[in-house]
């Protein structure tokens, strides 16, 4: 147990400013008559970025809206006014509500309405219908890239060819929609920056492997917005470099943004419960638990130089891989993060991936001999979470980790 000097992150604010600027510059661009795309988080953004197209991210927007307390209002609008089932992903419901209303209830996270939508399902299959519905209701074009769930461990050539063919088709489509030629040189430059941003982002996540860690793992949930939304931008590269330099400094000076003793380190699996970010974080913090392992690092860190390599990278998204590969990835992250246990979010909005969780949790617990517990919640719909049930499960997890630590002394 080592207590570090509490520190405030300046670089974290620089990273947040880059994320904020994505929205602000898109709002400005829309005012100037430029085209805006709504894009799914793991669409190969290097392609639209090479076209100079302004892209904003409905998933990140929905996360921000729900973190700021308007998730329920937006979900209820989608259910009551648009007739969507509350079984549909809350991000999708919030997004459809925003497309209908064109604004948030209290300005939580505004962004311009789209002129086209860019959809890739490598992170979630709900994307298809979500984006098709956006395209239909707003009467705008859709560019779709299908990355089928990979039930094999590796990505084979057939799969790469299938995805690569769609990249070529997407480029042709965008040339038609935007009325401009695809600039391959620009594309290569963007890929280079994107790969560098990916590397710096991954490096940032790896600082959590230090024991004790120089920052609280929940910070990643916020910083991830830049890795998601601005992978191809130089500003992101500079911001992550600054963040990483700050981490180095904190390590040297024995500082951390995690306040108090880092008694235990855990893996957090699943999307954050944005409406209850404070409660979920403070419950852990008050029991001396830091999150030092989560899959967000490799989820948004891609390295590639050309379209074929890019196809392979986007087909290897953690959510598009089979149980064995997904489990192996998390077990490696758990070992690197030196965790004592795991906390898994059974996310009502993410049924497909949540259905993996009980077996994945069982395997991780068995293979690494650590307790892994699950709690029910939702990434954005606050009606699907019980604070008391969460606290009870976390307390149980901590008591087991305490007991294990005593045995190890």
């Amino acid at each position, binding site marked *: 147990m080592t207590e570090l000097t509490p520190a405030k992150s300046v670089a974290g604010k620089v990273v947040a400013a880059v994320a904020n600027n994505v929205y602000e510059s898109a709002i400005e661009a829309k005012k100037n008559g430029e085209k805006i795309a709504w894009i799914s988080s793991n669409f190969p953004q290097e392609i639209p970025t090479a076209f100079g197209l302004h892209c904003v991210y409905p998933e990140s927007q929905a996360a921000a809206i729900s973190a700021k307390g308007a998730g329920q209002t937006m979900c209820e609008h989608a259910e009551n006014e648009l007739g969507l089932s509350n079984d549909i992903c809350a991000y999708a419901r919030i997004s459809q509500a925003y497309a209908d209303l064109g604004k948030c209830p209290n300005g939580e996270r505004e962004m311009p309405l789209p002129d086209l939508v860019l959809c890739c399902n490598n992170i979630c299959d709900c994307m298809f219908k979500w984006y098709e519905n956006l395209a239909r209701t707003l009467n705008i074009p859709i560019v779709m890239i299908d990355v089928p769930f990979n039930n094999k461990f590796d990505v084979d050539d057939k799969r790469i060819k299938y995805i690569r063919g769609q990249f070529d088709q997407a480029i042709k489509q965008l040339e038609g929609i935007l009325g401009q030629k695809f600039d391959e040189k620009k594309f290569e430059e963007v890929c280079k920056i994107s790969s560098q941003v990916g590397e710096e982002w991954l490096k940032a996540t790896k600082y959590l492997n230090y024991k004790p860690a120089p920052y609280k793992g929940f910070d990643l949930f916020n910083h991830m917005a830049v890795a998601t939304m601005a992978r191809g931008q130089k500003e992101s590269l500079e911001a992550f470099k600054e963040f990483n330099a700050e981490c180095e400094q904190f390590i040297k000076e024995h500082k951390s943004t995690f306040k108090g003793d880092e008694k235990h380190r855990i893996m957090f699996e699943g999307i954050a419960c944005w409406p209850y970010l404070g409660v979920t974080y403070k419950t852990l913090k008050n029991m001396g638990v830091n999150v030092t392992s989560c899959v967000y690092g490799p989820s948004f860190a891609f390295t590639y130089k050309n379209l074929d390599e890019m196809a392979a990278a986007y087909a290897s998204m953690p959510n598009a891989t089979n149980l064995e590969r997904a489990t192996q990835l998390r077990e490696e992250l758990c070992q690197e993060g030196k965790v004592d246990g795991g906390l898994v979010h059974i996310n009502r909005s993410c049924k497909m991936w949540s259905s993996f969780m009980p077996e994945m949790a069982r395997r991780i617990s068995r293979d690494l001999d650590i307790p892994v517990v699950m709690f029910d919640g939702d990434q954005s719909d606050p009606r699907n979470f019980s604070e008391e*049930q969460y606290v*009870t*499960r976390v307390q149980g997890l901590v008591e087991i980790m305490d007991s294990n630590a005593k045995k190890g002394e």
Partner: protein
Amino acid sequence: MFYLGMDVGSTATKCIVVDGSGTIVGKGLARGGAGTKAPAAAEAEALAQAQVSESEIETICATGYGRHLFDQANMEKSELSCHAKGASRLFPGVRTVIDIGGQDAKVLRLGVGGSLENFAMNDKCAAGTGRFLDVMAGVFGCDVSELSDYDRQSDHSVSISSTCTVFAESEVISKLASGESIYDVAAGVHDSVVDRTAGLANRLGIVPPVAMTGGVALNDALRERLEKKIGYPIQTSELAQFNGAFGAAIYALEA
């Protein structure tokens, strides 16, 4: 000196007083949980039975969903650890504890020394909990304590396929309306809880010996069905409902 464990649950509050050797000297139970008069009533009953005054209580440990709201407590522990602690005393050597309470169902794995090693809990759903049985008893027009007798008069179990409590309630009503005997439907209700509980237990992995705690453990017919389903004998105790409070009292003693 004496030590008090208070389990402020969702539907009932249980209180146990132990002496310096961990022997139970008083117990109290009151309907109602946090925010009601139940904690004070349960405590008063336990103290009266133990013939102990409040000033003679050295330490109070609170557990259960209302543990944060019991101001007199000197310490609190999760109900998971308290159930593990209580069960390790009530059933020495036990490795798996199945607890079905009013609001949740949980399966605990205990280490050889009785410490909590791992657990699985029901998801955010009343199916498979005491609440499910309360609702069904309401449909049958009986008290939940009578369900065991109803089951024993059954010829065959009528399958209740719905897992949702509200859907299952409708299904039970329609089975009764179609002429099925109330006893056979009661057996089906028990099987529904048993299937769900066995699924939870199998997810964690069952290591014998097995014990059952919580109010539902007193339902003999259901417990016997669960024994058949999981293939292991299940120990229980008349103190099953007090297990969490007992564990809390032992934590208070050990503090």
